[in-house]
């Protein structure tokens, strides 16, 4: 089990990571979400032993790692900006960890082909890094981090610049691989769906502090607060909603329906989503409400809507 205790990392005066404590159970996948600049990469770098903390420590199965140098931790880290070796070919990059481990040439080659194949870069072995497209580079970085199957694998937005289709194949498969090899994983992502579908545990960071922590289902069922709910991507998050709730509440867009007895509102915009068009309504108290109204009434239409309580969730 990976334990991070009271971690505080300061750059100059302001703290990038502020008293963070969490565990990652062996063989489990923890997803880390948080706004840009909230300290995700810093935490990973610290766990890898690449960052000195002002306070706090990291333990593996109870053993303090503070004195253990990076290369002896057997922690893999896929850097957000890849940090691929510019002087090595794709194969040279992907096989690096295996060679360091002392695998013999043939098995290295075999494994490299296997992993490259998986990320959809079969035949790229000989390519020079600068000739790769952005997404190809990201996949090489992913392959490089995964190849040696370290005991802990930290992935910093591993599929951020891949197209959704490729992502929706890779991410679930990645989950299977990690579980099969019992690799403990720490996974930074900006894609809620990714986190949901992959993670056993979710950590939401805010300004270097943990805003919420828990199983994905719980977190989505019970966002800790309005900020977290909004950050998680819920559209209709209100501190209160007249006539519906006077505590913080989330309303699913498909819980909104036309109802002459309902709240007065006006359509101020349309939003196009793959799932179909959505209407953005402004309520009397100026709150905005996104509603799945199909067909969406033209902008400007005044109407009344009611909210199906089943589709709402109260917070806190």
């Amino acid at each position: 089990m990976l334990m991070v205790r009271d971690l505080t990392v300061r750059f100059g005066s302001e703290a990038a990571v502020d008293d963070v404590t969490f565990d990652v159970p062996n063989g489990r996948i923890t997803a880390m979400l948080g706004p840009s600049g909230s300290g995700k990469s810093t935490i990973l770098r610290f766990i890898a032993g690449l960052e000195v903390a002002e306070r706090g420590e990291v333990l593996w199965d109870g053993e303090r790692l503070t004195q253990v140098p990076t290369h002896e931790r057997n922690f893999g880290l896929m850097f957000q900006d890849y940090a691929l070796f510019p002087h090595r070919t794709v194969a040279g990059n992907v096989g690096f960890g295996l060679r360091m481990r002392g695998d013999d040439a043939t098995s290295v080659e075999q494994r490299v082909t296997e992993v490259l194949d998986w990320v959809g870069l079969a035949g790229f072995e000989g390519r020079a890094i600068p000739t790769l497209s952005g997404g190809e580079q990201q996949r090489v970085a992913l392959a490089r981090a995964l190849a040696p199957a370290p005991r802990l694998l930290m992935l910093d937005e591993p599929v951020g610049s891949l197209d959704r289709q490729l992502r929706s194949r890779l991410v679930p498969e990645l989950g299977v691989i990690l579980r099969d090899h019992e690799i403990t994983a720490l996974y930074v992502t900006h894609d809620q769906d990714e986190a949901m579908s992959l993670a056993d545990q979710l950590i939401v960071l805010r300004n270097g502090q943990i805003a919420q922590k828990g199983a994905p289902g719980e977190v989505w069922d019970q966002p800790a607060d309005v900020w977290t709910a909004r950050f998680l991507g819920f559209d209709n998050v209100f501190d209160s909603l007249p006539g519906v709730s006077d505590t913080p509440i989330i309303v699913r867009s498909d819980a909104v329906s036309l109802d002459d007895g309902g709240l007065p509102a006006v359509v101020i915009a349309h939003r196009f989503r793959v799932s179909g068009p959505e209407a953005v309504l402004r309520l009397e108290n100026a709150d905005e409400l996104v509603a799945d109204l199909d067909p969406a009434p033209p902008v400007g239409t005044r109407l009344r809507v009611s909210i199906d309580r089943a589709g709402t969730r109260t917070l806190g």
Partner: protein
Amino acid sequence: MNRPGLRWLAVVPAAFLAWFYAYPIVRIWWVGFVTGDDGLLDAIGTAGVSDAAAFTVAQAAASTALTLLVGIPIAGIFARFEFPLKRTIRAIITIPFVLPTVVVAAAFLALLGPRGTLGVDLEGTVAAILVAHVFYNVSVVVRTVAPLWESIDPRLEAAAATLGANRWRVFREVTLPLIQPAVAAAAALVFLFTFTSFGVVLILGSLEHATLEVAIWRRAVGAFDLQGAALLSILQLIGVATLLGLYGRSQRNRRVQQNLLAARHTTRRARSGPERIAVTAGLTAVVIFTLGPLLSLAIQSFGGLDNPTLSYYSTLDQRDFAFAVPPTEAVANSVTFAAVAAVIAAIVGGIAAAVVAYERTSFATVFDTVLMLPLGTSAVTVGFGFLVALDRPIDLRTSFIIVPLAHALVAIPFVVRTTAPVMAAVRSRLREAAAVLGASPRRAFREVDLPLISKALGVGTSFAFAVSLGEFGATTFIARPERPTLPVAIERFLGRPGGESFGRAMAMSVILMLVTAASVALIDRHRDGDF
């Protein structure tokens, strides 16, 4: 992206080399062959020549290997760590580079001579030559390699570590390949420098060991057998050109563009215990190695430890005898020459480096090789070449500029070798970014490349300055207006019997050291200001 329109810039360094290098040596060879009698047979006939050639290459190779061995770790310490007195130490290790051989010889004999304080007698052994060469050149390695090294993105090394590479593997697998161009450059410089080593071999080396340089000098000066000398120097040049050719080939397609960072983002204080120990040990070792001999000089300049005195310094500037050059005058002359030489070298060398770095053509490779040749050509050949070649269109032979020119000729390779590797490593992507933001290629160069390379260029320039302070190259063989420099002043004192002369010579040497350290530190400071 090949930078268009740079090739024509090559005319500047090309013209410089043609006028002040190629033409003179060809002229002197010509003179040699027309005036020569049986020199041909002599030169080749002398059994010594093949031995000399063999010994020259052997000692140069050994010296280079040793210097790299000592220099690279030190370069690493400078590139990756912050420590107190960094600039001072960097300046100190540059001092030996400029000291006259006689002085260094005196210092070494005081330590490693028959009655040396260290108790080992290296006088006249090949070991003495090698140690002296390392002593002279370790700063060449440090100052050539560090600028590129400290620009390398540490995240690459971090990535290797997360993949299980220990320190050594990280160095072997990631760092070394990335700094390789700079290492090769340093190797080339040290090799050429020791290949044409003269004084060290003559004074410290056992007298039966003669390098080609010494042989050429003996033919040209002692025997005035210009034909033999020409033949030998052609032989020498062929050797140098061949080696440089191989060097050039080895460097082709070895360039890796990378994300160059400012030193302050890549260097840090030593953290773990081992780190601290390594850094401290490394620095202590190099400082002792450098300062040891220097201190023994300093001590002698104070009349020894038993009854120290300042008299040598106080009497330095009383012009009681005409041959005694007052230090102020000597310093002024040295610094003036050095400044002019450094400016010439920086401009010509900078342009040359740009051509070499950005033109990915075989033309660039050849050009690169040619640029290095002056460093591998015997000083006497160039010096006498000046005499027979530089009298028209305008007579430069006796003008003030001849001295800085001669120095610049030797300094330019330093500027090129320190600058080009960094230039070549600048990501063309950055230039593209500048272009899409409306910067013309020239502007892009000024805004993007220049800041990234200015440190390396600064190192090159301070080398040029040092080369000139040390009076390297052809100057001793050309008639020059009587503007005695520090080295000349030192030699003059040494040319007189009596303890006081010797003391004064040592005092003058100490002044030379201080001037060197000060000017180098100054140029460094200026450079450290950059990004």
